């Protein structure tokens, strides 16, 4: 005998108490299409029901913030009437099931978030995390995701300029695929719910691609539940991308905004038409009548719930005054896109949906959006704090070969060059890319100005696994530092919060700790949170990914020509370390790769020191004192020096004995708030003056020059050999030519 099927609401991802809540709202049993709408809108992915209560504690205000959390993307004022719009999202679950399309549609989705704010997308960054590449399935996921990102991004004319890549066992079952998009708009043309006013009687116009059976249940079934053995069967829940249509959608949308033809604009992403129509109506304080028979379909016979929740890509919803409808349709036709009226705004708050002449849903629009459930889920710290579970590598004896250790760390996939990946992305289209993936932060010019946007994404999963508070705070600090070493002032962040199952109290504790750490760091560094995305349920068979908030930092260079490069640009420069090295190997690259442990306390983070270093870097760059500057973090100062030499093509001779630490600690400690810089000898005095004024201790390590990289007695090798190793490591693991 087979078991009776679960009730429909459970099949749609709704819990029993949520079902009761719907009954109470409607005063009756919901119809099937209504259940599908609630199932999608009340999913974790759409409603943020487990995270909202914590997200509210983050600092979101600052002088530069134009649009904070709650809209499609955040926006920051960079002066001269220009707004920068940016947001990050994850597409991890779809990518785990179908890597190419999962990653490709992730790019398409975040780009639509940016255009729905009326901004032209100008840069993409892709933070990625995978299991070790020694596993063939991980290689399949990794190459599939990279090809998918390129396949979509390269085809829509938005440069992919950065994004870091990490590897860890915990990502074998759960790859993390995040994507950040940055756009530029005239501040007075931003399409926000306050700048555009919709009226009763206005049309909702669906334009772009037709609606098919792809991506049905994407948010509720894929994104808001853990992956299991049957996840392969979820492939139909993965959307299929059409980048050509995505490009047309960008141009058509920007033309509609530019010509002032719209009263509102929203992208269709998770939960499809249901989400776009209910959110647009709720934001306008109205209801809507939605006619599903008007929706252009890819196949006949689609049921109401399928049309309502399909996540077919490349669709947008515009709110249009009836008088402008013809003009809107003309713009869409010019770009070869369908544009049809599917709904009308009505007073009162009801969203009424008809299909084949029958009312299939009649629900208050706000009950789907603002009035979705909100949970304060139980949190419980583990009995023993994770940083105290194993022996701290900082205090382990190390008698191994330092030279060998150095090569192991340099060739570790976490450290080694990702050129093989970034070379598959068009990083130069639009002609504004001053610095791409080889730089700590990408730098993109703002057309028509001297301004440069500095962009970095950073996640510190390994630190987070040992201390979720510190992991999150470090991610913010490192992102700010990566921006500051280019000379840019950190302005604001977006984020993507990648965690396990929030129904487990330990995961919820990690989440709350991470939010606390992120909030403290953002406050101290003056970089408010303008929005972001939460990705829960990243776990399989009870094993979750490390708590990994990924931070997307936006920094501003007043004059892009003063950008400081990462690499040593010439011989004869003095090399300095700014900031101090302490004995801190916990959670570091050396500990994992050489000692074989992920344990101990991650490096301490003194936010006042970090803030001082950032101010120093920005001041020194502004006076053109620095010849180069590079963040010193993963792999320690030895790796930072090697990378500066590889990137710039010049060797160096330095000593690290000044720190009075064991050699392996001096080389590989990951103490925070440090940078490796080079200066012309005549600028040394000024650098020291500035460092003194900012209270940052400088240490003169040596000089640049020659073909060799020399660290005391510990390392003596040609830069060519360094580069060969650094750039060859990843292709070698993949069995590809370097």
């Amino acid at each position: 005998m087979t078991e009776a099927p679960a009730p429909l609401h459970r099949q749609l991802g709704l819990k029993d108490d949520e079902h009761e809540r719907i009954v109470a709202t409607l005063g009756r049993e919901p119809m099937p299409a209504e259940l599908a709408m609630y199932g999608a809108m009340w999913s974790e992915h759409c409603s943020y029901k487990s995270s909202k209560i914590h997200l509210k504690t983050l600092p979101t205000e600052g002088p530069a913030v134009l649009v904070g959390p709650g809209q499609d993307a955040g926006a920051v004022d960079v002066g001269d009437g220009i707004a920068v719009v940016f947001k990050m999202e994850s597409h991890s679950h779809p990518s785990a099931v179908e890597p190419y399309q999962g990653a490709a549609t992730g790019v398409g989705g975040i780009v639509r978030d940016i255009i729905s704010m009326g901004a032209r997308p100008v840069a993409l960054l892709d933070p990625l995390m995978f299991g070790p590449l020694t596993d063939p399935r991980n290689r399949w996921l990794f190459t599939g995701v990279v090809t998918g990102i390129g396949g979509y991004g390269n085809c829509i004319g938005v440069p992919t300029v950065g994004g870091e890549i990490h590897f860890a066992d915990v990502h074998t079952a759960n790859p993390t695929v995040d994507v950040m998009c940055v756009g530029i708009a005239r501040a007075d043309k931003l399409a926000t719910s306050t700048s555009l006013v919709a009226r009763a009687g206005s049309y909702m116009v669906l334009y772009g691609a037709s609606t098919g059976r792809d991506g049905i249940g994407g948010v509720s079934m894929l994104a808001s539940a853990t992956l299991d053995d049957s996840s392969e069967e979820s492939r139909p829940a993965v959307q299929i991308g059409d980048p050509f249509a995505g490009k047309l959608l960008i141009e058509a949308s920007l033309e509609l905004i530019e010509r002032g033809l719209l009263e509102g604009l929203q992208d269709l992403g998770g939960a499809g038409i249901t989400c776009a129509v209910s959110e647009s109506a709720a934001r306008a304080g109205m209801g809507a009548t939605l006619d599903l028979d008007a929706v252009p379909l890819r196949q006949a016979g689609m049921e109401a719930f399928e049309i309502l929740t399909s996540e077919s890509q490349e669709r947008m919803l515009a709110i249009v005054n009836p008088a402008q409808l013809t003009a809107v349709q003309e713009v869409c036709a010019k770009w070869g896109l369908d544009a049809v009226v599917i709904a009308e705004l009505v007073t009162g708050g009801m969203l009424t949906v008809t299909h084949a002449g029958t009312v299939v849903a009649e629900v208050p629009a706000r009950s789907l959006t603002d009035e979705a459930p909100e949970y304060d889920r139980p949190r419980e710290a583990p009995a023993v704090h994770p940083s105290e579970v194993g022996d701290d590598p900082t205090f382990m004896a190390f008698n191994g070969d330092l030279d060998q250790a150095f090569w192991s760390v340099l060739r570790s996939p976490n450290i080694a060059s990702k050129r093989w990946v970034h070379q598959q992305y068009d990083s130069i289209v639009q002609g504004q890319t001053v610095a791409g993936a080889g730089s700590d932060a990408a730098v993109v010019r703002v057309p028509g100005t001297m301004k440069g946007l500095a962009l970095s994404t950073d996640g510190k999963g390994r630190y987070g696994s040992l201390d979720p508070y510190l992991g999150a705070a470090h991610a913010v600090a490192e992102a700010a530092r990566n921006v500051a070493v280019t000379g840019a002032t950190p302005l604001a962040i977006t984020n993507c919060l990648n965690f396990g199952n929030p129904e487990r109290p330990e995961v919820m504790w990690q989440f709350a700790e991470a939010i606390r750490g992120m909030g403290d760091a953002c406050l101290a560094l003056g970089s408010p949170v303008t929005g972001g995305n939460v990705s829960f349920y990243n776990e399989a068979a009870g094993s979750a990914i490390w708590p990994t908030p990924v931070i997307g930092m936006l920094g501003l260079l007043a004059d892009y020509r003063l950008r400081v490069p990462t690499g040593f640009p010439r011989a004869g420069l003095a090399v300095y370390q700014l900031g101090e090295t302490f004995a801190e190997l916990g959670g570091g690259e050396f500990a994992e790769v050489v000692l074989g442990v992920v344990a101990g306390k991650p490096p301490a983070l003194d936010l006042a020191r970090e803030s001082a270093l950032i101010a120093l870097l920005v001041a020194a760059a502004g006076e053109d004192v620095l010849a180069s500057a590079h963040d010193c973090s993963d792999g320690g100062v030895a790796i930072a020096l090697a990378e500066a030499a590889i990137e710039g093509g010049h060797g160096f001779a330095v000593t690290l004995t000044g720190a009075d630490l064991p050699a392996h600690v001096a080389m590989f400690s990951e103490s925070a708030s440090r940078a490796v810089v080079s200066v012309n000898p005549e600028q040394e005095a000024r650098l020291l003056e500035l460092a003194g004024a900012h209270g940052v201790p400088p240490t003169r390590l040596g000089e640049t020059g020659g073909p060799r990289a020399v660290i005391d007695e510990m390392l003596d090798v040609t830069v060519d050999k360094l580069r060969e190793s650094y750039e060859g490591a990843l292709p070698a693991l993949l069995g590809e030519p370097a």
Partner: protein
Amino acid sequence: MAAAGARVGVVTFPGSLDDRDALDAVTFMGGTGVPLWHASHDLQGVDAVVLPGGFSYGDYLRCGAIAGKAALMQEIRAFAERGGPVLGICNGFQILCESGMLPGALIRNRSLRFICKDVWLRVESSQTAVTAGMEPGETIEVPIKHGEGQFVATAEQLAEIESEGRVVFRYATADGLVDDDANPNGSVGNIAGVRNDRGNVVGLMPHPEHAVDPDVGPTGGQGMFASLLAAALEGVAR
């Protein structure tokens, strides 16, 4: 600048991506960029035409195949037959090959992967509208970014291209050595760009429009745009 009178049209097809960039490059080099629309029959009296890079029509059929049938292409063909200078970059090169205005075809890179990086080119011929100001043997640095840039041709076509000196650029080292290591995509004979018999139509996979402004890349494209603007001005004089 002397070339300010040169008006260079840049065609936007659905899916063109480097159209604005090409207009910017024309402006940077002192010319006047004129946006042209694929569905129009109006060349707006321009003195030269650039078919820009991108993925026209998504490259879903074959790269450049559908764009080759665009309304404006009829006018561009006639313009070229009158001797007007036409430069096809990347997807624009593919369009010129698909429409029969240049010999050969472009297929997927040997590595089967998209490649975006700076490469060196050796100038093979100065008998063209875009290389008249350059010396054969000169090397220039220009980025490539394509997934389908492997130039192929039939044996007969190839013999003709080579014997008539219609190869305009070859992938090479910075020192001008043409070898397999310098060949990023497997193109036959390291061919990066070719011309028609008159030399007024040139197509190449690399992106000279991304190699004029030293703040954002190499400068190997300056010579091409300078020559194109000069050729455009000759047309004005004519």
